[in-house]
């Protein structure tokens, strides 16, 4: 047996080899320790986070969205019903791409959606910490049963019960109520810190959006610890938070009046606004065309929604606040108040109407030859010639100033999204925006609400309210009260707010009010605006748009009580004088290309007013109006 080592040289070599060999464990162990240090100390928190995402699975307990009531609190405008949603956890999909593709295909077939929709739902929200994605809501119970029976064939596919928004009155008030939908990536990103999550149902427009924070409540969640096969690992289910139901919202809208307004408007493109001048409460906002959110709130039902977005009449447009029209003759109220308040022209002063007004070499026509007219008659009979000449005397900028003072050219501040502000032109405005100087011809157009001036139906309605209210305009609003769904306690109650105090003398306001009454009793709205059950005052307008039939406008209020209750004191709420204006309502309507104001808008408003004040159905209302017209005809024939 060879004894180690044979000689000194071999022994040296052996030792050297030991040293060389030792480098290997030294370096490897140092490297291992360094990598362990990096993994466990430096990147430890990152890996712990990944371990956490591995084991924690959240499932959201959706909060029940608040109910929306009308002002009576008896009619429900929006509520929720239980429905099934199908969700997927992509992590649990088959690993094999072919199996996954087959699964997606079969699921799409079952749910009657496209496979691409499923893939989009998954890929869209890339950072879900919940791991699950809703791919379709409102799934038929039979389909859920099928999924449950074949759950082995659908790995990673689950279902849950979620509340689904229901609008029991179909398309009633759709523009105001708005609709809800699953949160999209952008909304989620923007509201990441406000308690929204990937399964949040959020308001997309209208009240649903504006008051989303109140309506949606707070989602709860369950935290489960799952194992690698996504099975529940621990019996401990952490009910992290119970869902808190959203608050109930009570609107100022009167469902019956809203129904009447929508029925009378029918399938004519246009808008109706009905409100209480006394408080600014909006009783009805109708806009046509409308839409029925019930048909598309459930995800995966996009055909109808697509057809709406492609409709060039723009069904999603709330014409009452989002459409701007020329004001037409209703603007004469503004000019009349300018005449009265500025004192530049005495109301008794008469201008001559020769069927129009010759200015230079241009003839500005009036709709008829009124002869000599003063301010009162000019309003009653809507004489353009009077206002041409009055406007020239006042100058455009003064009219502009009064228009602004009366709320035109500004948002009314109604609690709805997307309100437009309209346009009140002035010489400066024209220089800036049209890059041209102001001509006298512009003044004449301005005087009768044509040319550059644009208004929304709500603005004219508020202007009407100001006339009713002795010069004070209340801020219009649609949400009256918000109540806790749990305790019923009032969380928020809207107090009427003064939007504009025009500080125009009450006598001058009364002057215009009387003239508006005469519009109905003997003026332009005598036929069209005839009402049996109440006394109305109003103003027609036929807004010209080049080359097309005019828009038919009418704004009115009832009951008319003259000025006899007014003491001369500014008291819009009537508390001091005891004058009771609480029952007064104003109605403003526009029918696009509906002809003259007296032709279609005035009868529309009259019908609504008759139904409201006569407390009758529309057929009776029409009958009553017919009676009134016969009466008027007889009186005239005498």
């Amino acid at each position, binding site marked *: 047996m*060879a004894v180690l080592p044979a000689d000194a040289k071999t022994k040296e070599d052996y030792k050297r080899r030991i040293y060389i060999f030792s480098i290997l*464990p030294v370096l490897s162990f140092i490297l291992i320790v360094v990598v362990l240090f990096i993994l466990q100390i430096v990147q430890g928190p990152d890996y712990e986070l990944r*371990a956490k995402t591995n084991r924690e699975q959240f499932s959201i307990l959706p909060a029940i969205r608040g109910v929306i009531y009308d002002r009576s609190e008896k009619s429900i405008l929006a509520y929720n019903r239980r429905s099934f949603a199908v969700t997927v956890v992509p992590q649990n999909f088959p690993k094999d791409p072919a199996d996954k593709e087959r699964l997606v295909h079969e699921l799409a077939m079952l749910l009657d959606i496209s496979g691409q929709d499923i893939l989009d739902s998954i890929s869209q929200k890339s950072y879900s910490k919940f791991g699950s994605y809703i791919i379709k809501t409102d799934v038929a119970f039979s389909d859920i049963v099928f999924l449950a029976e074949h759950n082995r064939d659908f790995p990673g596919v689950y279902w849950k019960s979620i509340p689904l928004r229901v609008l029991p009155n179909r398309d009633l008030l759709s523009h105001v109520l708005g609709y809800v939908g699953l949160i999209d990536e952008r909304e989620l990103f923007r509201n990441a810190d406000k308690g929204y999550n990937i399964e949040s149902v959020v308001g997309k427009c209208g009240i649903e959006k504006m008051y989303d924070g109140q309506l949606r409540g707070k989602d709860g969640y369950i935290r489960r610890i799952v194992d690698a096969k996504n099975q529940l690992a621990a019996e401990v289910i952490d009910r992290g938070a119970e869902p808190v139901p959203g608050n109930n919202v009570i609107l100022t809208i009167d469902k019956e009046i809203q129904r009447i307004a929508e029925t009378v408007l029918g399938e004519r493109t246009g808008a109706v606004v009905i409100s209480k001048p006394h408080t600014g409460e909006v009783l009805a906002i109708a806009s046509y065309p409308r839409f029925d959110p019930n048909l598309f709130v459930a995800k995966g039902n996009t055909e109808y929604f697509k057809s709406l977005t492609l409709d060039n009449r723009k069904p999603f447009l709330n014409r009452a606040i989002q459409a701007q029209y020329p004001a037409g003759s209703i603007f004469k109220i503004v000019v009349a108040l300018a005449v009265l308040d500025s004192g530049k022209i005495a109301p008794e002063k008469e201008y001559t109407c020769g069927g129009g007004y010759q200015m230079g070499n241009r003839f500005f026509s009036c709709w008829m030859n009124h002869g000599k007219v003063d301010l009162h008659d000019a309003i009653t009979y809507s004489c353009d010639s009077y206002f041409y000449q009055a406007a020239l005397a006042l100058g455009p900028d003064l009219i502009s100033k009064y228009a602004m003072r009366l709320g035109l050219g500004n948002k009314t501040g109604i609690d709805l999204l997307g309100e437009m502000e309209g346009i009140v032109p002035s010489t400066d405005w024209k220089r800036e925006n049209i890059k041209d100087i102001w001509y006298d011809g512009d003044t004449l157009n301005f005087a009768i609400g044509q040319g550059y001036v644009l208004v929304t139906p709500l603005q004219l309605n508020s202007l009407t309210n100001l006339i009713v209210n002795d010069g004070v305009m209340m801020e219009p609003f649609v949400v009256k009260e918000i109540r806790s769904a749990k305790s019923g306690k009032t969380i928020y109650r809207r107090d009427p707010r003064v939007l504009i105090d025009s500080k125009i003398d009450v006598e001058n306001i009364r002057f215009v009010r009387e003239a508006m009454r005469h519009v109905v009793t003997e003026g332009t709205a005598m036929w069209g605006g005839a009402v049996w059950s109440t006394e109305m005052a109003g103003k027609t307008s036929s807004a010209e748009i080049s080359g097309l039939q005019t828009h038919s406008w009418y704004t009115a209020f009832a009951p008319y009580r003259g000025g006899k209750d007014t003491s001369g004191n500014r008291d819009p709420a009537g508390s001091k004088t005891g004058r009771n204006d609480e029952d007064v309502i104003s109605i403003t309507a526009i029918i696009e290309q509906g002809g003259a104001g007296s032709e279609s808008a005035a009868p529309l408003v009259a019908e609504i007013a008759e139904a409201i004040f006569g407390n009758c159905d529309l057929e009776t209302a029409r009958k009553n109006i017919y009676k009134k017209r016969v009466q008027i005809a007889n009186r005239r024939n005498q």
Partner: protein
Amino acid sequence: MGKTDTQREFRFDYGLLLSFIVLTVLGILTIYSAGTGGGTAGAGENEYVKQIYWAVTGLVVFILLLFINYQKLGEYAVFIYIGCLLLLIFTLIIGKRVRGAKSWITLFGGFGFQPSEFVKIGVIIVLARYLDRIGEEIKTIKHVCISLLITLVPMGLILLQPDFGTALVYIPIVLTMLFFSGMKYAHLISILIILGIAIVLPLLVTFSSLTGSESIAFLKTLDDTKAVLLVASVFGALSFVFFVLYKVTKKDIFFKAMSIFLIFFAGLALAAVLGRFLKSYQRKRLIVFLKPSIDPYGSGYNIIQSKIAVGAGGLFGKGLFGGTQSQLGFLPERSTDFIFSIFAEEWGFVGSFFIIVLYGAFVFRGIMIMLGAKDRFGSLVASGVTGMFLFHIIINIGMTIGLMPITGIPLPFLSYGGSFLITSMVGASLLFNIASRRYAR
């Protein structure tokens, strides 16, 4: 020999004993923890009980072996070698297939073991005996080849099972022993280059196709066995030309040229064989550690989950039974291949560092024993055993932290599995045997 002599012969290395006992106990504890996962997660709930049995059995074997002078083992080398080969052939015939490899022999009573683990010790003894006998002759290429052949036969039998990982670990063991037996550095480096070419070439193609990088024409050629063999034969022919030139001129430069071409010839030829031999999933598994994210749910899953487990351990760990990666079953093979990940998750950096220190101490004791062995045979056996431990440790821990490919090589003393635990105990016993007899006459 009198009684006093025997007592003097045994100089017990208590530090070494303590380190592997502690490791074994920690292993049992970790296996217990890995098995406690609730419900579906717990794979083998009584694995730790079996491991205790094996540890005890291992300890008994450990003690019994101490009574046999290791020098006697060398004398039975031929029988040991024949026994090993028969065992492996036997395994191929009646072996039980576990995880795709016919690597288990089940004895009566359902008790099974993996011969390929025990054969490691056998090969170490046989090689030590052979290298001891040939002495300085190892500097000739002929004896290097014979030594390699001694290893390649059992290795080939294991590859036939096929258990790629276990077969591979024989290579560093034999190289370590050849190195300490005094082989020429040039030979060692040549072998390393040949192995490097043989392993890197087939994997390079797989990796580039996995990462989706534009497979250049050059890489595609590498995948073509015929093309590789063609290039190899060109090198082979050149090598032959220089061999003839050397024979004629006797000039050293031609010999060197011949050697270089021979190395490339061998490397490429082996690469071609390996390329043929390795299935695509095996190649994927071997290479995916470089970038596990390319296949997070397939071949990269284990590495990703293992790194998460290790990293989530942080400084002090999550405590015993506290590791969610293991308890909830995110980590597969957690009691065998990935036992270290579990330990690291539950004991953190502090615990892992402690383990590394224990292994470090163990390996360096091994090296000291090599140095202090009283004969060349003992020194060579010690080098083989130390090499076996070292490479198992590096490859296994390296695998769990993403430094090494997944080869399924267990961690000494910690990993669940009777065959390797007992093999490790036998290895440790040999080290003790050598260490304690160094003063014996």
